[in-house]
């Protein structure tokens, strides 16, 4: 188990088949900020003509869109790389928590290069501190960007 993964609901090591996996679970609204580790997932989402592709400019925008979609009756998922988790602190603490909104996070957990190392170390603890357990971690294998 990696340092970031102690409290994960689910840990995957490949994004292949992940989109279909979440579709089968009823998720019907996908928005996020890309990660190279999520490429198969994002390609499958982009290929689904029943979905509007939503290129969010930042993770908090994606999470707020997901919250709005949830209030409109959808089951939303937000995808991001771990480097963007900090942007979610505000909407998790002051939007999702007080209003009781559920959004699943698919987080690509980056380890390398160096700029990802510290967030990798604290990702699990940060989510635990936020009392947020509705997420899936995608462990890094080969990510270049």
């Amino acid at each position: 188990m990696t340092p970031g993964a102690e409290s994960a609901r689910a840990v995957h090591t490949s994004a292949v088949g992940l989109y279909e996996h979440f579709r089968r679970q009823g998720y019907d609204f996908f928005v996020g900020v890309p990660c190279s580790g999520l490429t198969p997932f994002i390609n499958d989402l982009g290929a689904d003509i029943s979905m509007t592709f939503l290129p969010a400019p930042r993770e908090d925008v994606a999470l707020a869109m997901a919250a709005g979609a949830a209030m409109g009756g959808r089951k939303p998922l937000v995808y991001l790389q771990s480097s963007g988790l900090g942007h979610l602190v505000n909407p998790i603490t002051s939007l999702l928590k007080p209003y009781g909104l559920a959004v699943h996070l698919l987080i690509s957990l980056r380890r390398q290069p160096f700029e990802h190392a510290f967030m990798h170390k604290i990702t699990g603890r940060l989510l635990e501190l936020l009392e947020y357990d509705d997420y899936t971690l995608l462990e890094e294998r080969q990510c270049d960007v």
Partner: protein
Amino acid sequence: MRRLEAIRKLAVGWSHELVVATTGMISRELYVVRDRPENFYMCGSMGCALPIGMGLALARPDRKVVVLDGDGAALMSLGSLALARYLRLANLEHIILDNGTYASTGNQPTCSAVVNFKDIGFNVRVVRVEPGNEPDTPRIPYDPLEMRRRFEAATRRPA
């Protein structure tokens, strides 16, 4: 025009519109002039009113969605205005009450004077209002969970 009067004039025209109001005094003054189940008072998460409205407008293309924003909040998430322009959702209107200040926190200046929001966003309507707040504006008394459930029930009623 005072912000309260501007909100009153806008709100009087709403019937089935789903309204997402930004944090601070804009939500509180909307509550004062016209509380309705179709209002979502976004207390907190400054900058998120427009993306919430976009998600709602995407989920409910049969409903008109109005985002009632402030210049400070719009500036905080300018990227979401660009996404709104990219998506061009016909059922979404973005109203920005622009007083050039963070009025709710004591009228500290924003940089809105150098920004043309209409050039960045989509279906943007900028309403210039005076800085300052009305005295004795109450806080929104609802439990946030109950208010959200009331809003969701309103989104499910046929328009």
